[in-house]
């Protein structure tokens, strides 16, 4: 399971991404478990919506935060997310 830069990503239907008011952060929820996300991870996962591929996610976030050079960090995180089953590709 390796990341394809050109294929769109979807958030897993077996997980839920949700804003938690009490914790003031996004979390991933799954059977009897929860992962707390920092802001950048949450930004990336919200773009795993079936419409963006990894390259487009990098472009979108670099534009949003008016910066460059986010590619490596984003690809690293997307690989982790894929391995954990939080997102799916293809």
């Amino acid at each position, binding site marked *: *399971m390796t990341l394809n830069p050109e294929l769109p990503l979807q958030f897993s239907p077996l997980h*839920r991404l949700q804003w938690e008011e*009490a914790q003031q952060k996004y979390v991933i929820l799954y*059977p*009897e478990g*929860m992962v707390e996300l920092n802001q950048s991870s949450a930004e990336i996962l919200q773009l795993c919506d079936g419409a963006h591929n990894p390259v487009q996610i990098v472009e979108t976030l670099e534009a949003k935060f008016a910066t460059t050079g986010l590619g490596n960090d984003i690809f690293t995180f997307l690989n982790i997310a894929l*391995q954990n*089953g939080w997102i799916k590709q293809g």
Partner: protein
Amino acid sequence: MAGSNKADITPPRWLLAELSYKCPLQCPYCSNPLDYAQYPNELSTDDWKRVLSQARKMGAVQLGFSGGEPLTRQDLVELVRHARELGYYSNLITSGYGLNEAKIIELKQAGLDHIQVSIQASTQELNDHIAGTATYQHKREVARLVKKHGYPMVLCVVIHRQNIHQMPQILEMAENLGADYLELANTQYYGWAHINRDALLPTREQFQQAEAIAQAYKEKVAGKMKIYYVVPDYYEDRPKACMNGWGTTFLTIAPDGTALPCHSARELPGLDCPNVQDFSIEHIWNESKTFNFFRGTDWMQEPCRSCDEKHKDFGGCRCQAFLFNADMYSTDPVCSKSPERHRIDAAIASARAQTMVTVEKPLIFRNTKNSKPFFKA
């Protein structure tokens, strides 16, 4: 009593709603209290809705509908819908008994996130014997339907000496049923499991062999099926970080509305566990004697008090300390630093001795008749 600093209190994250102690199964390792039949009262639908709302407001996000068998409650769909509206991730922890396709669809539409089905063994004969009910075929069918309707499917198998030899078949069964997660829960020896321990506790060799098989299988199914392996703490030399620390994360509400820091805590003496019919969740969590009892580390005795691992395991399990040492403040006897560790070793030896005899002790099944001798005056 610790008298912890209020500023240190973290909000609940997990709410375990034990909707009912009624259960058509009679598993001899049930985690319900031995005297469960003494508490037949159940909260009303409105009580449960209020509890769910109050705990959610404080920050609880994972919700387990458990029991007994939660499907015995006629208002389960209504409670699931309420939980979804509040933003909980809701887990139904069920034997599968009484679950059919129409109900599975109805619960999905109401917003249920996940169904965990228990299976007692990989063969019909052993499953039906341990459950005390003929349920094997139906459980397999329920597992298939859960998967079919798009839920993450978690299969839970409680492991003990009667089924540990089936480890390879249990793993194959879970894979064939398409489980997304397999929970291999080594029996924790409280309540019914505690009185049946001689018949349930595997030997060290059995445990090591089964664990090696499960670990190897983990690699085989990586990326397809996640395997959670709950270790049997008797064979560890450090205690488990029970409940992630008392009153830090977990809140259990028993069927009669009693609020508990863990589902066994009503066995402990003198805690005066509060009831949600008398107090709000916020009051119970922050102010009650029960939830503050073992918060922090001030209550600890030696060797915990001066131990550099006390923030890692919080002294282990209070219920286990009480069961073995009759002193709920003492170090969990699982710990090799505990002067009472020999009691755990004696329990292991006693169970091993049972494997050598020709006529083993009979299992005491969890039912109302067997609960009565344990009623408290």
